[in-house]
């Protein structure tokens, strides 16, 4: 399964919940599969999707907040996992699309094929950590977490490749304004 196929499965189930997406192909895929005003497309500031998601989750505890992260992104801001673990946002669902490469810069390897992000998340006191690699698995997890409290991590093992689709055509200021308005 490649990234946009995996994301498609999530988006069939996540209809309205706010999503913060990491820069690179992850934001582009989200934009091309299901654009909505409660998507915050992070286009710069690599590594910070989980931090932005944490800030939102802490401020609006009644809403589920999804973060669509990548392995390269989270490895750049591992400290974020410790802060999330310390603050324990019950409504944060941290999805990592893990292809073990920096795909948007040309497919250079990350260390996620050798180092377990799931084990790091466990040490950081995430309440639930799931790993999935197929459609059935993802759907089962999405069903299970309805009854779970966060912080939750879902690692989706994917293959590299696939078309990333067109760039996000909304200006950053508009992305922000729409998000604030609709949240």
């Amino acid at each position, binding site marked *: 399964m490649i990234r946009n196929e995996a994301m498609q499965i999530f988006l069939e189930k996540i209809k309205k919940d706010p999503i913060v997406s990491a820069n690179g192909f992850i934001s582009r895929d989200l934009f091309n599969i299901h654009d909505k005003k409660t998507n915050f497309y992070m286009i*710069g*500031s690599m590594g*910070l999707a989980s931090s*932005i998601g944490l800030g939102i989750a*802490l401020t609006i505890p009644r809403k589920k907040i999804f973060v669509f992260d990548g392995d390269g992104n989270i490895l750049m*801001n591992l400290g974020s996992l410790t802060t999330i673990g310390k603050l324990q946002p019950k409504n944060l669902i941290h999805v990592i699309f893990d292809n073990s490469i920096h795909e948007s810069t040309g497919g250079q390897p990350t260390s996620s094929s050798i180092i377990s992000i799931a084990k790091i998340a466990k040490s950081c006191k995430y309440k639930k950590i799931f790993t999935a690699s197929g459609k059935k698995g993802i759907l089962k997890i999405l069903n299970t977490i309805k009854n779970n409290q966060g912080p939750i991590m879902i690692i989706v093992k994917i293959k590299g490749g696939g078309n990333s689709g067109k760039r996000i055509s909304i200006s950053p200021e508009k992305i922000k304004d729409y998000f604030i308005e609709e949240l």
Partner: protein
Amino acid sequence: MFDYLHENGIKNFVGVPDSTLKKFIKCGLENNKIIITTREEEAIGIATGMLLAKSPSLVFMQNAGFANSLSTITSLVQLYKIPLIFLIGWRGFLKNDAPEHTKIGRIQPDLLKIMEIDHKIVQDSNWKKMCDWALKKFQNNKSCALIIPREFLD
């Protein structure tokens, strides 16, 4: 200064500790209003999330940490026009501060200028006025920085 900013609407104080700001941070910790992060960029990310959820936030750091954050400031705070208040302790302000602060402290005014960040230097005599200036910037949806020079050695 903490109490004043808090009473005037700033709800969250997120950042990395700095000795110049230790009294400010102590005050915030006692009020349970401080989030300590592992790096400055992380603090900017969290504060941005809070602002997206309409909760006014300040990010505090040392000037060395400000230098860590340049790319995050250009590609998140300035790109999306996020109205953050930065509170930055300025090491290397005194000529005889510790050696690791000498160069980064010397270029701090130029860094702020080249980054096009509106800023004011805070002193004992003007802190309230400077806080009002920053709060006004925030109300007008602009980011800005308050700089506190470290005028003591230990």
